[in-house]
């Protein structure tokens, strides 16, 4: 147990601390820096693996250790199947990417920054999934966003990268504040940030019958908001496509294990927490769970359709991720019984298969981009000959993605579909089936465009070569896992300590499978013919101008709306600034008005008062002393004014005194 305690801390602290040493080591040798990063990843992966047996053979109960950190908040680790599952996945993928980067990033500028951020990214993500309290989790949650911002804008000299990074950070921030609000509500309700504390609080309140489920439903929706933004779900999914500006190795990490998976982790974690009180689940059931499913289903189909039209090879993969995560969300939306539901396990299982095939896809895409220097699929074609290994691996990847048996996704996606079929309504089911079909279609499309057909003009000009070994080996590992992972389902189930009603064989025998497979075949054929055999029917539709293509080419107009909002804010800001410019002149105007007034008074006293005084005296004199005084127009002297003022002041004093004492 001591080993586990130590490794559960080290597994996230080590990469974080090690990241600080990257710049120091880089001062001595660039090579040492690279291998240092790899070595740390290896150790991290080892540490993560060392956690597995404890959970596997344990009771499945969560354990946590914590130390005092910020006053009132402790830092701790939370060990349960869910967190260890994620930890292992992240550590493993960290290692894969670190190795892959050796080849892919070779010769790039700013690699010190790259490795620093990579380790920080891995450490943060592990920290996120292993935290035992919400604040710590939230810090890592934000740090994951921060690292992805920095990594996506890695090529900071390219304005698109910078813009993309900014977009990612800001859009995910919207979710973050929702999560923060949820944390605030939970803390207010239970007075603690720790998961154990919250679980205990919910249980105690539920048994006492004092649980404020209304507030918790709000919190649950806010949590969902956080997850949506982080996992690129409807309606905040557009950032993921922009994030393709990142180096492909980063994209792989981002899609396979970190960042987008954080949302899934969050929801899975909270479903576990919420499921301790049946009354709470009952409160969440009418609205929250269906909303989760709906978001998942809609995102899945939107992502899939968009993947069908994009010409960017990484774009296809990005939309594919969006779509696949939609599946996971849909699965989570059916998990009304917490860990006991199929949906919950199915999502996590699919999460891992997705990590493998999507990671594989990115690694291969990275190799291709590396080799030919473009991401546009229209400029590719016929790579089958020049990159044979990639060709084979990509074939494995698209088979897995599409969910063809017996590869990993067949089982995981099948489970999700089963869970939705059990719990969801007809439209959701139909949409999910449609999505699977489209998934196959876009996979085939991509495959055909890249590897099949004739070499494009672009490719003829350059010497295309297979990716180096250091890039291929990680891909091969992932491909291997894609193939066999599906068989690991019972193993994973027992690791997660969930009991599944369906067995491995059941996946082949239940009703869903035939429907599932029967859908794949026609779409696959259509895609194959239209892209490989150059059958023009679909292409004409795609090229023509019709509502469908307009919607798809605009990405369902989401980015246009957001752009509009951003422009709106910018316009408002401009307005406020103009307003500010106006009002900041106000003090000056005010002051000048006072000075002007004072001047007027002065002039008045000097000139007008004198004249009016003369008039007054003339009137008085003429009325009272006609003939006695031969008064001429009194001289205009200031001395006369003074004397007059003195006499007037005398009268003023008299009046004031009389006013006071009321004589």
């Amino acid at each position, binding site marked *: 147990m001591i080993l586990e305690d130590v490794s559960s801390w080290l597994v996230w602290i080590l990469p974080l601390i090690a990241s600080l040493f990257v710049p120091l080591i880089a001062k001595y040798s660039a090579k040492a820096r690279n291998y240092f990063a790899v070595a740390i990843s290896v150790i991290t992966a080892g540490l993560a693996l060392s956690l597995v047996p404890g959970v596997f053979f344990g009771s499945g109960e969560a354990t946590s250790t914590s130390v005092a950190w910020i006053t009132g908040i402790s830092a701790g680790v939370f060990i349960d199947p869910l967190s260890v599952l994620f930890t292992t996945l992240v550590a493993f993928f960290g290692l894969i990417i670190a190795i892959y980067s050796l080849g892919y990033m070779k010769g790039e500028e700013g690699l010190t920054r790259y490795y620093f951020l990579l380790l920080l990214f891995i450490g943060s993500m592990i920290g996120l999934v292993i935290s035992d309290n919400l604040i710590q989790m939230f810090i890592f949650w934000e740090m994951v966003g921060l690292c992805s911002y920095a990594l996506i804008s890695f090529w900071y000299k390219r304005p698109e990268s910078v813009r993309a990074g900014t977009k990612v950070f800001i859009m995910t921030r919207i979710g973050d504040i929702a999560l923060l609000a949820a944390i605030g509500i939970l803390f207010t309700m239970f007075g603690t940030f720790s998961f154990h504390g919250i679980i205990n609080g919910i249980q105690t309140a539920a048994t006492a019958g004092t649980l404020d489920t209304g507030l918790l439903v709000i919190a649950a929706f806010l949590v969902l908001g956080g997850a949506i933004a982080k996992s690129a779900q409807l309606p905040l999914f557009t950032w993921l496509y922009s994030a393709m500006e990142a180096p492909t190795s980063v994209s792989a990490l981002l899609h396979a294990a970190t960042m987008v998976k954080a949302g899934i982790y969050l929801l899975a974690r909270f479903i576990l927490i919420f499921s301790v009180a049946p009354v709470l689940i009952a409160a969440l059931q009418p609205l929250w769970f269906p909303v989760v499913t709906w978001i998942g289903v809609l995102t899945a189909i939107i992502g899939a359709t968009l993947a069908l039209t994009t010409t960017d090879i990484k774009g296809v993969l990005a939309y594919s991720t969006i779509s696949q995560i939609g599946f996971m969300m849909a699965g989570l939306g059916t998990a009304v019984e917490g860990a006991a539901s199929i949906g919950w396990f199915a999502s996590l299982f699919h999460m891992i298969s997705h990590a493998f095939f999507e990671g594989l896809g990115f690694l291969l895409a990275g190799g291709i981009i590396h080799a030919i220097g473009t991401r546009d699929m229209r400029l590719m074609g016929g790579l089958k000959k020049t990159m044979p290994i990639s060709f084979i691996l990509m074939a494995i990847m698209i088979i897995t993605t599409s969910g063809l048996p017996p590869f990993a996704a067949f089982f995981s996606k099948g489970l999700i579909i089963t869970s939705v079929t059990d719990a969801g309504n007809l439209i959701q089911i139909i949409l999910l089936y449609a999505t699977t079909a489209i998934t196959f279609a876009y996979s085939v499309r991509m495959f055909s465009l890249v590897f099949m057909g004739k070499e494009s003009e672009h490719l003829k000009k350059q010497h295309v070569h297979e990716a180096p070994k250091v890039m291929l080996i990680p891909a091969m590992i992932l491909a291997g896992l894609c193939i066999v992972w599906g068989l690991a389902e019972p193993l994973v189930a027992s690791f997660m300590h969930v009991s599944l009603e369906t067995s491995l064989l059941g996946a082949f025998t239940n009703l869903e499978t035939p429907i599932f497979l029967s859908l794949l075949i026609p779409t696959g054929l259509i895609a194959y013919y239209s892209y490989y055999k150059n059958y023009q029917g679909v292409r004409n539709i795609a090229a023509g101008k019709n509502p469908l293509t307009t919607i798809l080419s605009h990405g369902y107009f989401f980015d246009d709306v957001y752009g509009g909002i951003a422009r709106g804010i910018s316009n408002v800001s401009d307005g406020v600034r103009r307003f500010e410019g106006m009002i900041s002149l106000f003090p000056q105007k005010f002051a000048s008005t006072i000075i002007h007034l004072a001047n007027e008074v002065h002039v008045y006293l000097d000139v007008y008062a004198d004249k009016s005084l003369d008039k007054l005296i003339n009137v008085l004199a003429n009325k009272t002393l006609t003939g006695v005084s031969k008064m001429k127009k009194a001289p205009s002297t200031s001395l006369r004014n003074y004397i007059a*003022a*003195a006499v007037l002041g005398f009268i003023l004093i008299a009046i*004031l005194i009389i006013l006071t004492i009321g004589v």
Partner: protein
Amino acid sequence: MVEILDISLPIISLIISALLTIPVFKIVRKSSHKTALTLGWFIVVFIIAGATVANLALTYYSIANPGLLNLTLNGGASSIISSSFLVDAISIYMAIIIVAISAVVVIYTVFFVNSNERPSDRYFAIMLMLTAALLGAVLSGDLLTFFIFWEAATAAAAFLMMYRKNAFSLNATLKYLVMVIIASAFVLFGLSIVYGITGTLNFIALRDALTTIAVSDKSLLILAFVFIAAGYAIEAAIVPFHFWLPDAYTAAPAPSSAFLSALVDQGSYYILIRILLYIVIPKGPNATLDWTFMLAILAALTMIAGNIFALIQNDVKRLIAYICVADVGYNLIAITSYTSLGLIGNLYFFLIGGITTALAFMVVGIINKHGFKTLEDFSGIGKKLPLASLALVIAGLSFIGVPPLGGFMAKYLVFTSALQANLSWLAVIGVLTSVLQAAYLFRLIHYMYARKSKDATVIKESKRILIPIFILAAALLVLGLFPQLVLNLLEPATRQLQLITPLP
């Protein structure tokens, strides 16, 4: 025991020194170390004067729990008409600050050497005479004695003002004198009525008589009060009687302005305190006449008008003169509040206001000497005359009431006393106008430091004339940091005020 000699010694010593100054200057003029010898002479004079004042103060405070001591000239029991002197904490305090500030200004004047404005022996003699007259005024024990000393002081002040004998100063002096004689005529007429009602002019006797005044005489008393108030309001340059002040101070040479603003002004507040707080008490069972409303209005008017008119001045010296007017307003707040805190604040304000205005006039005098008069002229002065500018900045900050300079503590006391007397509106006007003060003084500082000077001529700063200036600047800082030094002297004054009438 305080003898009449103790009281008259400072006055007499100063008068004698004034008379001796002319022959002394005759002798000194031939010497090659003229300035040093002149300085030596005045140091001796002021050491003697200071010693006599110190003697008076020590003798007075050697009495256990000293009260108001009224001594007549013939030394006998207080006769109604005999010229009498009054010694109490306030008058001693006033005597000390008059001698001290006068010493600094005279030293400044010695250094203030300029071809066409060179102060002559007569100028110094008049300065000493003026100091003597003011000492007599603050130590006097009845209205008539005060009146006589005060007239002497104003006559001397008129000579100081018109010292330049150019059209400007003649004009200003003429205005000053006309105003002053009108004032004294008013006062004299008022006094005659007071005398008619009460049969006495002695401060203490008068106060006792007023508390038992017949109802039928009350309206007559009001008439008298109005005359006296108007008269002294002219002297103190309360708005709307203030017109003469800016003219006079602007036209006078710098040492005169400094002297007048620091001493003659303060003398006029002194008599306001004497009459208003000690004789015509406004509240309590013995109240004679409630004048607080009247004074509050005048205070507000003075602060507002003084500061706003200062805002539109272009001539720096005139600007400072208007600040003197505004300072009158702050002083009046303290008097109006009629609390012991107000009294302390008022007396402290005398000192600080005196030092600050003197400092400002002295510095502006130096700068004017180089031909810089208007705000535009002052552009870039901060770089040309850094030390003098620093002193002016210190004076300005003290005017505004920026701690740790003395002006802050003075204003704090004044505003707090106004709050204490339930005159919050007056305090609010006070603070708002002091923001205005910040505005125009910082405009001045802005010109001095931010603007580029038009000509690039380098001016060599005379160092020794800065000695008295920095004495005053340091005094401002020290008094701001350790107001206790002065407040200790004032503390008996509040007790004595309470002896007369219980205060809130």
